[in-house]
């Protein structure tokens, strides 16, 4: 794997708080690397350091074989912030041309590239209209187009679909899959596990400023979750504790996670375990609303590692 980004021992503190704590990873060309974690996990700080916006207190970052502070290297990367970084009184085209000028792309070249990208993100009819009349989704798409103006070899996306409806998210996913290129590396931070799974070749799960797990999504699920998950929901939420105590008699406590009034049991042999669980819970008087076998997700990986959920899944 040709390495595009090499991060080693990166640490950033703000006063007493350590936002990023000794983080190391590599991202290769042609790869989409996902940073998954809840709000406050340190994803945005990490991304800001990789983009060269803030300086780390410790550790090193090598981007595209050089120093991120080097303007030649910066000219080959681009950063798409979580909230659209756009000027409301300028038109869509003017916004793109402004950002391209910061990369030294001006005149006819900038105009042609801006028109091409406007078309690509489906905003042809709005190219010459001020951004203040754009909807939230249109702004997000224009924001993404602005990040592509310099045809970056490293594209850094901070929560690109936060606040979007499911339809819009899928459109952005489609666009991102189109720009994936063997000569381009993409780092994407998200707290949506479905987004991380859908887009990323490899995922780093972050919590409290540290990477607590890293790898391909299937490998992570296999390593930290299990083959299957038995999801149990109750008519009476008070039954959750009673059920957990009953299951702990013959299952490892770390394989049982109680969350939001339900219980998830991680198992390599769900076909055998499911009838047994149903019978045992019936015996202790727990009324089951539903019990089913599901495939583990990255959320399960996070749950097993931290005992907490990343967030409620949208859409």
């Amino acid at each position, binding site marked *: 794997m040709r390495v595009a980004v090499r991060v080693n021992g990166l640490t950033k503190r*703000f006063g007493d708080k350590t936002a990023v704590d000794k983080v190391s990873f590599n991202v290769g060309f042609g790869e989409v690397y996902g940073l998954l974690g809840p709000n406050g996990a340190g994803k945005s700080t990490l991304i*800001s350091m990789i*983009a*060269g*916006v*803030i300086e780390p207190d410790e550790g090193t970052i090598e981007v595209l074989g050089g120093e991120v502070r080097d*303007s*030649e290297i*910066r*000219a080959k*990367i*681009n*950063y*798409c*912030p979580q*909230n*659209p*970084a*756009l*000027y409301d*009184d*300028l038109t869509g085209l*003017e916004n793109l041309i*402004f*950002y391209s*000028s*910061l*990369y*030294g792309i*001006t005149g006819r070249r900038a105009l042609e590239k801006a028109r091409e990208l406007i078309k690509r993100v489906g905003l042809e009819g709005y190219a010459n209209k*001020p951004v203040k009349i754009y909807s939230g989704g249109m702004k997000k798409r224009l924001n993404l187009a*602005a990040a592509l103006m310099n045809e970056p070899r490293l594209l*850094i996306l901070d929560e690109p679909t936060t606040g979007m409806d499911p339809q819009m998210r899928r459109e952005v996913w489609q666009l991102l899959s189109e720009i994936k290129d063997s000569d381009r590396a993409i780092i994407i931070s998200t707290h949506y596990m479905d987004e991380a799974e859908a887009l990323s070749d490899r995922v780093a799960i972050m919590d409290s400023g540290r990477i607590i797990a890293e790898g391909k999504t299937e490998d992570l699920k296999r390593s930290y979750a299990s083959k299957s998950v038995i999801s149990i929901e109750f008519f009476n939420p008070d039954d959750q504790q009673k059920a957990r105590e009953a299951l702990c008699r013959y299952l490892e406590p770390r394989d049982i996670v109680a969350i939001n009034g339900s219980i998830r049991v991680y198992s390599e042999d769900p076909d055998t375990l499911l009838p047994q669980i149903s019978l045992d819970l019936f015996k202790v008087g727990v009324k089951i609303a539903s019990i089913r076998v599901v495939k583990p997700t990255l959320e399960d990986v996070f749950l097993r590692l931290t005992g907490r959920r990343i967030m409620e899944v949208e859409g």
Partner: protein
Amino acid sequence: MRASAIKAFVVKDFKETFRDKVAVFWMIAWPLIWLVLTAYIFIPPGTDRPMTMRIGLVNYDVSPGFPVNGSILIRALEEAEYKGVKLFNVKIYEDKALLLEDIKRGRIDAGIIIPENFGENLTLGQTTLEVYVGARSIQSTQINRYMLERFIEEFSRVVSEEKIAWAMKFIPGEYVPLEVLEVVEGFLRGLAKPVNATFTEVLPEALISREAWIGWYTIGAIGMTMLYSGLNIGSTALLEERQRGCLHKILASPTTPSELIFGKILSGILSLSITSVAIIVFGVFVCGAKIHWSPLRAEHWIAPIMLLVLASLTLGMGSILSLMVKSVGGASNLSTSLGLMLAFLTGIWFPREWFPAWMRILADYSPATWAVDAIRDVIVFEAGLMEVVHYVIGAALAALAVLAVGVMIYRRMLKKYLEK
């Protein structure tokens, strides 16, 4: 520093500023409204002409046999002029009570009662006049009284000349030598008017014309706009980028903090320069301001240079102000209030001569006022380079110092914003 990045900020900020209706109101419309008010309400056309006094007269003089009588005084009042303008608008009353009533009601400014035998007494000896001056305000009383005193003094002098000439006819020339006659005549003239003072007006021509006053206020409008707009642009330059969420994206590009800061300062200077040109054009062509500018005259180049100095100074002051504000709205409100207050208190909008002594100190030590005064002196009052050089050097040094502090503050704030 890369020109493309700096130009990008200048073009972007320029478009944003002049597409924002609120910004256009404050930067263009507001100073123009003030100029119109000044030119047509506070200094209306005709303000610089001599004033005409409304005067009432009651003539009780019935001495037709004498060469001088009440009618001659009335005619003299009606014919008195100053710089081609009639000094008195005369109204004849039948009765003293009616005349006094009109003075009290403010219908006339003053009244003169010409007594019975006025002509006879004037010819043969000394006469009296009753003069009533309306006392609506100290200033108007002072002016009206002065005008009437001056008129009566001049009328007395002319009558004296006539009476001396007439009296000299009674001295028989064949018995008295000519030298003695001349001494006697001189002595009599001395009795009539011991001191014959001459008055010559040496007020600066530019100060007294209405056009020059409007020129003065036109430059004042630029100074006022520069103060609040410069403070506003300076205090919100980085805050606005941060509040919009664009700062991280800009600094993730090859753009350096220096390019960002320099681009922001340049765009501010460009916007303020365009505002200044608009105000001057409006002042000259709509309000009739007297402003001279010729590219062929070296000293006239002080005006654009001082405009740039003033813009840099106010932008630098704005950057210092940004240390005290947390939001764009807060910065705008503070800049506008502070800018207007400074314009009013430092001799930029109101002439410092109107201020009490302690307040003039503010104007005397304000670099913004130095820059504005240098512009006024050169293009309104046609002063030479040496007359304003102290203002020019003082303002330029102050602007450089304030701008340097401003750039340091911007750098510090950038670091703070990015790490927040």
